[in-house]
């Protein structure tokens, strides 16, 4: 078995390639070509094709990204290359909401109650994935449109609620009374005996338009003020 390289000596118009001569057999190990799109009128994919003698295409192997009209690429094909993760081309879709008592209307949770956290400073990189809306308080609901997997995180700074309470990320369909809560301990680094807390979860929604909220729980007998809350959601993968 002899290792060899066969090379085209001329510039050819695409599609261009090599036909195995009569009575010959080869095992292809890699292919490389300079793809010159300087005369192309639109973006394109460079595609390696195996074509049978009857002109049918047996398989295709394409580049993960397009080559812009007028651009060129030095393309190498070989086994073992991992395909790129599918994406919109603009990175992972991302939404966030912020509440800051120094800039926004006061928000607190009365003793023995729960309430949905309002948000004011919003980001949303892809409106086809996320929508912010108001259910009870200002922009307290984030709808996750495609069924899929989402990474969610919320950070909280505020009162201790007597030692219990804090933020939880939940579907908006869950009744407030069933929410879990966590132990809140005063952070000695903060003035006034206030606490930091967080909650994080991975949501795998099996249906579209899954709405989530951050609920601040306060099962204690003390009223609780909220100072700052940051809520982040990343869309990781599609599919139910």
């Amino acid at each position, binding site marked *: 078995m002899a290792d*060899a390289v*066969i090379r085209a000596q001329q510039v050819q*118009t695409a599609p261009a*390639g090599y036909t195995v001569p*009569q009575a010959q057999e080869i095992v292809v190990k890699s292919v490389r070509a300079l793809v010159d799109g300087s005369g192309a009128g639109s973006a394109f994919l460079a595609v390696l*094709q195996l074509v049978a003698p009857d002109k049918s295409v047996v398989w295709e192997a394409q580049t993960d*990204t397009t080559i812009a009209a007028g651009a060129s690429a*030095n393309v190498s094909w070989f086994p073992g290359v991992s395909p790129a993760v599918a994406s919109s081309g603009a990175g992972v879709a991302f939404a966030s909401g912020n509440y800051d008592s120094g800039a926004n209307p006061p928000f607190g949770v009365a003793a023995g109650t729960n309430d949905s956290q309002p948000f004011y400073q919003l980001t949303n990189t892809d409106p086809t994935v996320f929508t912010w809306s108001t259910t009870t308080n200002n922009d307290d609901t984030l709808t996750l449109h495609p069924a899929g997997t989402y990474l969610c995180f919320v950070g909280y700074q505020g009162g201790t609620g007597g030692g219990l309470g804090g933020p939880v990320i939940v579907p908006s369909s869950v009744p407030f009374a069933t929410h879990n809560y966590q132990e809140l301990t005063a952070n000695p680094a903060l003035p006034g005996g206030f606490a930091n807390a967080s909650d994080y979860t991975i949501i795998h929604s099996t249906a579209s338009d899954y709405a989530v909220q951050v609920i601040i729980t306060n099962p204690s007998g003390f009223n609780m003020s909220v100072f700052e809350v940051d809520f982040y959601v990343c869309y990781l993968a599609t599919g139910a």
Partner: protein
Amino acid sequence: MAAPMKAAMPDNVDIGDSFTLRVAALDPSTGDAVAGVNISNMSIEVDHLTAGSLDFGPFMLVPGPSA
């Protein structure tokens, strides 16, 4: 300067005579051929399983160090 790109192809592509390995330029939305694209410096690394010449059309064996 052309940007380097890499792409996956099947492993152990064993092909016999009259099969063609070619590079096409296709529209990413329609799959139709895009005109105005040229292919040059196409090189294919192979294991040659048979005796005889692999030269075909504009393709020729690259001379080795002792050629």
